[in-house]
């Protein structure tokens, strides 16, 4: 009887020890994994399956013939910080469903933390040049015998202002945000970069000079010895040569 009890006790102790060992191993592995994940010392995120889009066709909606001479480009970036909170307008529930009506209220950037926050690092790229499609025949004067040519160009302008998804870096996102709110958040970034671009006189000066150089080089290569390029926006934009006879 005593022998059986002792054997039972020994067995129980062994089972308990085995269980304790298993628990210790489990805690060690789990704890180690949690610490590694929290501190980021193991590249655990890389094992996560990345979100990828399906391959879908690209439909050509419209084809347009253009004639644009691009002579300068402008790059800039800005940081947008948007904070908002949800204000409850009407609280309620019906058949277990939440019918609370809320509205989103934008709050000043420097107000208390703990609200929904979106931080974007926004890059933009603008292409500056001339829309050659607006050139008329009267803007070109030629004197073939004297190998002289004059051309009046429309002024340089921003032909493209590009802010693509690859130009947007969502640096921080706290709370609930959707596409419409992202669009609203990006609007001031566009305004700011456009303002900086329009204020940059050097940019438009460089674009004008570039256009003048390209046109002069092209016409000189075509055999013209005297090439005069003027911009319609300039004060003395009159062409001296007579119009080309049709």
């Amino acid at each position, binding site marked *: 009887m005593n022998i059986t009890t002792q054997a039972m006790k*020994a067995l129980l102790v062994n089972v308990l*020890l*085995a269980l*304790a*060992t298993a628990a210790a*191993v489990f805690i060690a592995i789990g704890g*180690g994994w949690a610490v*590694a994940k929290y501190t980021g*010392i*193991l*590249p655990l995120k890389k094992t996560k399956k990345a*979100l*990828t*889009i399906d391959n*879908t*066709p*690209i*439909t*050509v*909606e*419209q*084809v*347009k*013939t*253009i*004639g*644009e*001479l*691009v002579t*300068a*480009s*402008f790059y*800039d970036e800005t940081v947008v910080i948007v904070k908002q909170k949800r204000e409850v307008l009407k609280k309620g529930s019906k058949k277990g469903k939440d019918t609370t009506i809320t509205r989103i209220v934008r709050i000043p950037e420097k107000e208390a933390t703990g609200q929904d926050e*979106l931080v974007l690092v926004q890059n933009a790229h603008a292409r500056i*040049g001339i829309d050659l499609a607006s050139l008329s025949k009267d803007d070109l004067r*030629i004197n*073939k015998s004297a190998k002289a040519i004059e051309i009046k160009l429309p002024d340089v302008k921003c032909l*493209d202002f*590009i802010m*693509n*998804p*690859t130009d*947007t870096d*969502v640096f921080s996102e706290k709370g609930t*945000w*959707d*596409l419409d*709110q*992202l*669009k609203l958040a990006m609007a001031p970034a566009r305004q700011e970069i456009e303002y900086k671009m329009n204020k940059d006189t*050097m940019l438009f000066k*460089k674009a004008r000079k*570039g256009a003048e150089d390209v046109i002069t*080089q*092209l*016409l000189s*290569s*075509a*055999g*013209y010895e005297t090439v005069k390029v003027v911009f319609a926006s300039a004060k003395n934009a009159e062409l001296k040569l007579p119009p080309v006879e049709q």
Partner: protein
Amino acid sequence: MRKTIQLSKWLLAAVLLMLTASGCGPDFGNKSRKAAAIEKIEKIKSEKQIGLVEYEVSKIVKAQDARFFKLKKRAIICACKAYLKAGIDLSGLNPMTDIVIDPDETMITLTLPKPTLLSLNMPINEVDVLYEKATLSKGFTVTDLNELLRQGEDQIRKSVPELGILKDAELNARLFFEPLFRHLGFTTVVVLFKEDETKA
């Protein structure tokens, strides 16, 4: 019993040692690689490009995933538009060798660089979410959405050779330069592209 306790201790120590040794130390190599790539962009850059054709394209961006034993599911379908411009980068044109005028000055041969994609514009204001569903999941965050749109932009960019925009740019280059040089007094205008040189 002592043996079992000792065995347990050893087992525990071995597991802890294994965890410590399995790369819990800082990854110095990775950090140095990250620091190496610093991109330099000029704020204002001179260009010499002639845009000749613009394509307006549309694309459906769709994605879905399931996590935690396929219990947490989410799916999204977005419609987006992009504007692509293609043309000639004149910085690859050498007027001394690529523009040739015959001695009697009636024929000009222009050898242009091959057309390239000059710009791709995918405005966020022209992106619409058509469908979104989340089961036991928070749904798509703005970070996720931006990542999906980035992939959409990338797919559009990669599809350029098949779209036909570069062929159209070639055709438009001929339609642009031939009348221009005829207007300048040449009776014969030959427009070639750098790859065509051998064929001509």
